[in-house]
């Protein structure tokens, strides 16, 4: 499902001219996650967790090495196929990344509309998932009118509404109380049982302990543990 083979990534220094490279953000990362697998991604801030997730959801290309996502060589994929592949990946961003001018309903509906699902199906799925995350009465609210926790729940709903084959979450419980975090994890584990491959980056050790799963542990751009 996901395979990293000696993956390196360097960010370019924009102010040092073309070709100028900064330090390595990822250094020779190797791992595999089988289809339907669940992995926690942990490590201190700056370890490279978010960068690794960006490579998985095709927001970055590696400087060196090979990445396969759902059987596709990420570096050789066409732009059209990359877009289609992204539709099968649900992403919960650390900063939510909601569209400020769209309501909670429209934000969650966006992936389904981009996939050209029928509007009656969009309505059924969006209202159901927003009800599940406790926002049934906030469908028309704009992101600015929602609390941080509510925004995070909208972002989670958007990531899972299309029943993705791969779910990537970057600190998905960071703004949630324990009860909401528990509901979210119930949702994620349910998706995982239905076959969705899941990788969740977190600093929350209590959460990791409560939902035991193999760990990908990072430090200074390297994978230090692969359970």
């Amino acid at each position: 499902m996901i395979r990293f083979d000696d993956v390196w990534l360097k960010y370019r220094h924009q102010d040092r001219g073309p070709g100028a490279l900064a330090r390595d953000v990822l250094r020779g990362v190797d791992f595999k996650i089988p289809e339907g697998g669940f992995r926690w991604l942990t490590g201190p801030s700056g370890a490279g967790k978010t960068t690794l997730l960006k490579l998985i959801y095709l927001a970055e290309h590696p400087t060196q090495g090979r990445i396969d996502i759902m059987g596709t060589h990420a570096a050789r994929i066409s732009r059209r196929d990359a877009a289609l592949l992204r539709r099968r990946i649900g992403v919960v961003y650390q900063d939510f990344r909601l569209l400020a001018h769209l309501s909670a309903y429209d934000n969650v509906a966006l992936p389904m509309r981009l996939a050209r699902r029928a509007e009656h199906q969009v309505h059924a799925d969006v209202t159901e998932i927003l009800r599940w995350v406790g926002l049934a009465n906030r469908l028309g609210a704009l992101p600015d009118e929602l609390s941080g926790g509510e925004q995070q729940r909208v972002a989670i709903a958007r990531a899972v509404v299309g029943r993705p084959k791969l779910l990537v979450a970057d600190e998905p419980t960071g703004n949630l109380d324990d009860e909401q975090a528990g509901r979210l994890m119930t949702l994620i584990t349910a998706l995982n049982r239905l076959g969705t491959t899941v990788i969740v980056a977190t600093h929350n050790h209590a959460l990791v302990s409560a939902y035991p799963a193999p760990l990908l542990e990072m430090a200074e751009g390297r994978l230090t543990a692969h359970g």
Partner: protein
Amino acid sequence: MAKRHTDPLGLHSVLEDWMLPVLVAAMSFLAALAVAGALASTVLAAQWQNDTAAALTIQVPQPGAPDATGNATRLAAVQAALQTMPGVSSPRLLSADALNRLLAPWLGTDAAALGLPLPAVITATWNGPGPGDAIAAALNKPAPGTLAQTGVQWAARVTALTGSLQTCAAAVLVIVALVGGALVALATRAGLAQRRETIEIIHGLGAQDGDIASRFASRATALAVTGAAAGALLALPVLLWLAALAAPFSGPPQLSGLQHGLAGLPPALWTALPCLPLAAAVIGWSSAQLTVRGWLRKLV
């Protein structure tokens, strides 16, 4: 049920609702004038060419002197020759009064009183091939010194002038199209810069380049068509006024000012003006598509 949001990129608030249509309207106005100029020059040139090329003027010096045979005057000999000459029709001898009126600007109202050896002038219609050089040669036999001049050389100059005007109009249209495309591209780039984060999110959710480009292109096209239609409509009264001014050269003299304008506009203009918004649509769509797709290439 929440109302479907048809503009996830928020383009209504990004692509300026007034700036692009106003600038495109100005371009469309110029294009309308250029097209009208090209069409009018074509129509007028066709009329002038027909009139000018067909005009034949013959000057017979010493018209009362005997011709080469000595049996008739030179004028009578020339008139007789013209009656049988192929390609020449309707020969008409200008009267002394008509000749006086022609010469009045140079010689005053009574040229005959000056005792100058004025030639007789015959006008006719020339329908033959070529510039009619053979006419003078034929008429010089009975009446030496006779001059014959057709309007063919003037018609050639009118043709060259028309060609120049049409080339200028075409150049104006090309420039207008390029500037129009550049305006759409600039507006689109501004919109892309303002909505960068939104586009990155939608791109990350699986939007195809074509999906994003089409949303920009649809909006840019709508604004460009609106502007072009407004520009073409604004140009219409100006064109009617110009056509009314040009009416003495093109339309029936008994019509009123507005009728002159309407009658004076080339019929093809009524097809060309509605084409301006269509051209703006094509330019707007393609320019926005190219701009957005080029910009999206920078995203992974």
